[in-house]
């Protein structure tokens, strides 16, 4: 199974709406999102079961993911450099299979953000003060609806409309349904082989 809309092609992603959940902290790495011992499997099917497992155990039921008021949230609010470290797609897969469709944070690690895009998950960056305001608002009223408009790059909540950012290329991929890159890349056809033939290390010196 590939992305959030597996089996369908060219799905445009324009809006995400749902309830929010807040995980505080900066530099949360993918080892923490999904500890390596759960990667010893040949499918992603059960990834969602182990999301933040060690952090949740350490928090003894006090982790936001175990907080009833956040149950069923689809938008996760995070801090700076979220998803740093290992390139494991198991991390966004675990988040997706747990139920998250979008992430709002101060910044995202590059490979993590790329992996999200290839699954049709949205990462929106907001500045620090706005992240803090959004966190406060969600923690105060977890039942409220959070809306992300991909084209406008905005995050709307009871805290107001916040102008965020999604890199141009990514935004285009989401809006035009090109986030599942395989089909797009294959459209180049024979141009791929022509390029390969011009490279001496591929063709032979």
């Amino acid at each position, binding site marked *: 199974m590939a992305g959030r809309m597996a089996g369908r092609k060219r799905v445009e992603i324009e809006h995400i709406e749902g309830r929010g959940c807040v995980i505080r902290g900066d530099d949360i790495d993918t080892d*923490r999102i999904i500890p390596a011992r759960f990667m*010893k499997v040949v499918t992603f099917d059960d990834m969602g079961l182990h999301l933040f497992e*060690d952090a949740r155990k350490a928090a003894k039921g006090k982790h936001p993911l175990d907080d009833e008021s956040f149950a069923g949230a689809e938008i996760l609010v995070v801090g700076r450099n979220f998803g740093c470290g290992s390139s494991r797609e198991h991390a966004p897969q675990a988040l997706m299979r747990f139920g998250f469709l979008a992430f709002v944070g101060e*910044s995202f690690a590059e490979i993590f953000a790329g992996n999200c895009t290839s699954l049709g998950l949205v990462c929106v960056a907001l500045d620090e003060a706005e992240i803090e305001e959004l966190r406060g608002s969600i923690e105060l009223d977890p039942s409220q609806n959070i809306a992300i408009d991909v084209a406008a790059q905005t995050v709307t909540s009871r805290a107001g409309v916040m102008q965020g950012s999604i890199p*141009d290329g990514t935004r285009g991929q989401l809006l035009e349904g090109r986030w599942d*890159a395989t089909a797009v890349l294959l459209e180049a056809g024979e141009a791929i082989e022509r*390029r390969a033939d011009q490279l001496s290390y591929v063709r032979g010196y």
Partner: protein
Amino acid sequence: MSDQPKNLFDKVWEAHRVRELPGGQTQLFIGTHLVHEVTSPQAFAMLRELGLPVRFPKRTFATVDHIIPTDSQVRPFGDPLAEQMLSELERNCREGEITLFDPASGHQGIVHVIGPELGLTLPGSTIACGDSHTATHGAFGAIAIGIGTSQVRDVLASQCLALARPKVRRIEVSGALQPGVYAKDVILAIIRKLGVNGGVGYAYEYAGEAVEAMDMEERLTLCNMSIEGGARCGYVNPDEKTIDYLRGRKFVPTGEAFERAASEWRGVASDRGAEYDDVVTLDAIKIEPTITWGIHPGHNIGVGERIPTPAGASDEERAGVEEALEYMDLDPGAPIAGTPVDVAFIGSCTNGRISDLREAARVAKTGKVRDGVRAIVVPGSQAVARQAEEEGLDAVFRAAGFEWREPGCSMCLAMNPDKLIGREICASSSNRNFKGRQGSPTGRTLLMSPAMVAAAALAGRVVDVREVI
């Protein structure tokens, strides 16, 4: 053709561009695709679901490293999940007609160790691998990029990636390193200076006298941890050392073809006067043997320094420092030297090559592993292991009380039986000190050079390796 000076990144990018994609991305041809057992099975499954073949099987090479046990590589592995992962890789390689360097091949090892040693890592090439330390291969002047599993599927299907072009930052390390200071210390110092996300959106070009003076293995260590600084790729311009290293390697052409290749490789280096989006300089002489004290690689200090206090941290960093100190349970304000260690791990794609083992063995020769310390040496590849055994390094390590293991990733990420237990503190030559990284959810990691790890193993605590060698 303009003769405007170009940097290596521009040249390689242009040579591999297939077409521009809408939205500002480039479709880039990937010359070499390296595959391992953990991030590929789902990609092969997706490919099968789409009914697509592997487009360039001859440009795809696989090995097994993450899950492989290091006490014995005999099949079937003791862990049925590990056995299943290798079986799946074997099946995928068989069906996809992909070369697999398994233990029986004599070329098995950590994917970023075997690429260079087999001569698969070439100047001016593009390399992708479903592993964030792919930047390692940039040491040869390649654009080498770590990707996720969906992108592994993209490369299997099309031998291409859709990528936004990063900016290029040149990092010049001027002057010479002190004895006892290694490439590992340099990259940690760079990450300390620029931050763990300072490299987001950039490719790093490492340059300057200290980098030019490094041998190829040190350059691999340097490029390896680019990702820890947030940069998806990092590279060093190829020079005569690069060319000498490649001569005679398994996948490198011979005779006249080699000379043709070598002249191409020389031409791919950044031109004098090339432009960069940013330039940063560091002074090599100021770099000390460096150690991490916290929970990400930017949490590092020189061996002569004191563990930071929350009060001394900037407002932006304070919460992170507090969290790290709490997890590590180290004394804020105390010298890092003297911190007791329970485990010593020498290995990984950062520091599991022959020169790393030679440096560590030099230290190991001077004493015995302290009672109560568990010390293991895991060569990065079968070739490294053979070379080390030929030089008698295994005997040196064993005599000093280290365990000598079979090649693999081992305790770098503990997907095999090599793990920390409980709150153990590990002096480690690997690249990540994240919470739980070495297999125990509460385990602690101090990153340092292999020579420093060996010194810590003997002393049972963190010491300055310069006092030992």
